[in-house]
């Protein structure tokens, strides 16, 4: 069974005939060839595949591409901002060493982007709980928390 799906990713339309069982993350990575979104588990625990679906953070490994038909997806490739082209949250991760191997990072960035859109000044506890579904094996999380705090502070200044 195949279905023609039309998904807008980072404001560009991608239309492909895909098998119904095609995961959204595979549509993003292998049809649209946007490989910044990663796969780290098969049980929606690690969050490496986190993208925004109509503004909501979702795990693209547990959605089918057909479920996103006609909707808007944002991935790490779509993040932009005034820090040499980086968004405040991307620049925050750079300033505060919020990444090491960088594999979980795109998912982290999207989860953080969703958090700051909803809550511009989160407390440390709110940051930690908002990132509960994103696993990082490298940083121990404190520097990720500092990265989000850096971005939140910059957004206030701007």
């Amino acid at each position, binding site marked *: 069974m195949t279905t023609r799906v039309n998904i807008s990713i980072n404001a560009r339309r991608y239309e492909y005939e895909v098998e119904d069982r095609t995961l959204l993350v595979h549509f993003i990575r292998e049809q649209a060839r946007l490989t910044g979104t990663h796969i*780290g588990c098969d049980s929606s625990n690690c969050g490496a595949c986190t993208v925004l679906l109509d503004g909501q953070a979702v795990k693209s490994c547990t959605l089918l591409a057909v479920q996103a038909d006609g909707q808007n997806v944002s991935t790490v490739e779509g993040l932009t901002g005034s820090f040499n082209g980086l968004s405040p949250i991307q620049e925050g991760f750079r300033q505060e060493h919020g*990444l090491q191997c960088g594999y979980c990072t795109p998912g982290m960035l999207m989860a953080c982007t969703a958090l700051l859109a909803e809550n511009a000044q989160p407390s440390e506890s709110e940051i930690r709980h908002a990132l*509960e*579904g994103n696993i990082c094996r490298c*940083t121990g999380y404190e520097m990720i928390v500092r990265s989000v705090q850096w971005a939140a502070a910059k957004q206030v200044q701007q």
Partner: protein
Amino acid sequence: MSLVGARVLRKEDPRLLTGRATFVDDLLPANCTFAQFIVSEHAHADIRHIDISQALQIPGVLGVWTALDFRDYPDLPGGLPDLERPPLATGRVRWAGEPIAVVVAEDRYIAADAVAAVKIDYNVLPAVSTIRAALAPDAQLLFPQHGSNCLVTVPMLDDLDRAMEACDERAQLRVVNQRCAVVPIETMACLADWNIDGLTMWATFQAPHHLRNKVSAWLNIPQNQCRIITPNVGGGFGAKIVFAPEFFIMPLLSKWVGRPVKFSQSRTEAMLQMTHGRDQEHDLEVGFDRNGRIKALRMVVTQNLGAYADPTGLGLPVLTNWMAGGCYKIAKVQTAFRCVVTNTTPVAAYRGAGRPEATYAVERLVDLVARRTGIDPVEVRRRNFIEPQDFPYETHNKAVIYDSGNFPALMDECVRLLDYETERKRQEAFRNDSSKPLIGIGFSTWIEIAGFGPNGSLEGFGHLASWESTQIRIHPDGSATIFIGSAPHGQGTETIVSQIASDELGISFDRINIVYGDTGTVIQGIGTLGSRSTPMVGSATKVASQRLLERAKKIAGHLLEASEDDLVVADDSFSVRGTPGKKVGWADVALASFQPLRLPPELQAGTLEERLFHESPNFSYPSGAYGCVVEIDRRSGKVRVAKMVLIDDCGTVINPLLAEGQVHGGVAQGIAQALFEEMQYDPSTGQPITSNLIDYLIPSAPDLPNYIAGRVNTPCPNNPLGAKGIGESGAIGSPPAVVNAIVDALSHFGVEHIDMPVLPEKVWKVLSTATKGST
């Protein structure tokens, strides 16, 4: 201004932050096919029959291969003689998850369909999943030809009885260092493309040349036709220096189907097939006097190797035995170990590899001595420390000579930042107040062996040698490319090496780039493992830069008509000391280096290239003092790390931001081992029961604390940087600090030890028994 020691932001970050980095699974060459493995559903069985006929009927399936197809190829490199691991299970499967057959298909979904269509008929055998079961007199043998599940025994040379008998007191302890899954967030992936010009394989690996040497030998092809590329790699932690069968099978599949073949593990596959770490049991004894001075220590390690003996797995108990004495002056230390096979995933290196186990053992023993003597654990440590003037310090093992350190200073700083006295008072005040959590305070003062290593140290693990290489190339515009033999995957080595080279060469940080992870471009290399990159490749780069600069100064002096001895280099130019304005840019010197008419007569064009294979006379020995305060919920038994103080001595710090990041990450894995993680098997069937991230608990942000970090620096005397390495420190030092704190919190219930992971249930049982007893 010196960049070494400065908080320099990473070169690596922009590509990783924008989704523009390339990981193996991101690659999708034209005509790419996908491989998938059929793995054993039983822990121990003989394979009666494999039926691939239905799988071959599926449109888009290009083929299915079994062990028979690989019979002209040897077993995988590095095992024990006659007990090696075959590329695919041959006749018998030895753990649930062992690969039996492999399919190649047009896409990964069709490959998955084909896997489901392969039928295997097994004759199921009894499975042994624990050390105890494997060593039982009537145990089912994994390798009947060997006659025992115990593959290796290294006995004690002197049983220590006389030394123990002479002590005022003795104490025994049995500790389990449980099996952990490594779980880099990027699983294992590889893409092989074997075409008419030779083999290129992109692989998730920590040591590309090492893999190139073994794969080319296995395939019997020249090394110059076997190119291994490790692009961005998403964490390794030791599991990506293992000769997984995928790396040997994929090239042949590519050859056979005549197209590129890609394989990428799912997480469930990674949990079963990527090697695990730790899994040791220790029988320990310590002899001491009434003043808490330790006189004798005995350590007997039993290592669970899993189903096959991986070369780094065999090395784990060796390193544990080497480091048994910790940072203490103990007159008699005796060690022994044995290695046992079980029907479980093979065990190999995991961040720290043998040293976390040693540290855990000795640090638990020191606390036991404190308990038995009634002396404060901080004081017991101080009474037993190797003192700063004792270095270099020869340990019980001649291979291990501690280079430098200052344990009393580490302890003092840890006690100060922990606010020890205040925490003890808080503990006392809370102890009998049931509305408050139970407080526990624990320490770990530790030393580890890193900077692998001196000649001979890595050869035993199958490496070509133990040096590390650097190659510096100056381009005609005065920018520089440095090719390094390390293969970083998150450590920030591009930044570290650029900082060192920029300081030495006077070339701006932004005009230096680092190339690594490609056997086609990097001259030779060993890899990123054993906390070696900064001491080894950093030192190589420092010395090579100095040598190259000597020749650059000759050219600059020639151009300026000045003595090279009067030249200083900074900010991308050479100037004459005391003569302001008399200068020449690095770009012009670099350009001249390629123009014979402008060179001094003794130099030839192309002289500004330098390569160096740095050898080290000794290992390096990072050390530290970690302090932990836990709060235990009296009703649930849940442990919360309330305070974690981390004082590290890694010698010279190149970049404090990156050094702190390494410690945080290691400590997170250490706390995870202490509190959360354990790879478990059903003892009756050998079936794994924590084979995904639902059942295997990796901590996320709410589960871990903030860290209070401090530093004591004693430079490493064995390399020109003075750096000791810091990649594994956190994972080594932290588990005993946490467990010592928990045991401290429960000590008034008579608890002297509790095994990891300290899940709420274990603590709850202690608390509920104690409560019942008092009512």
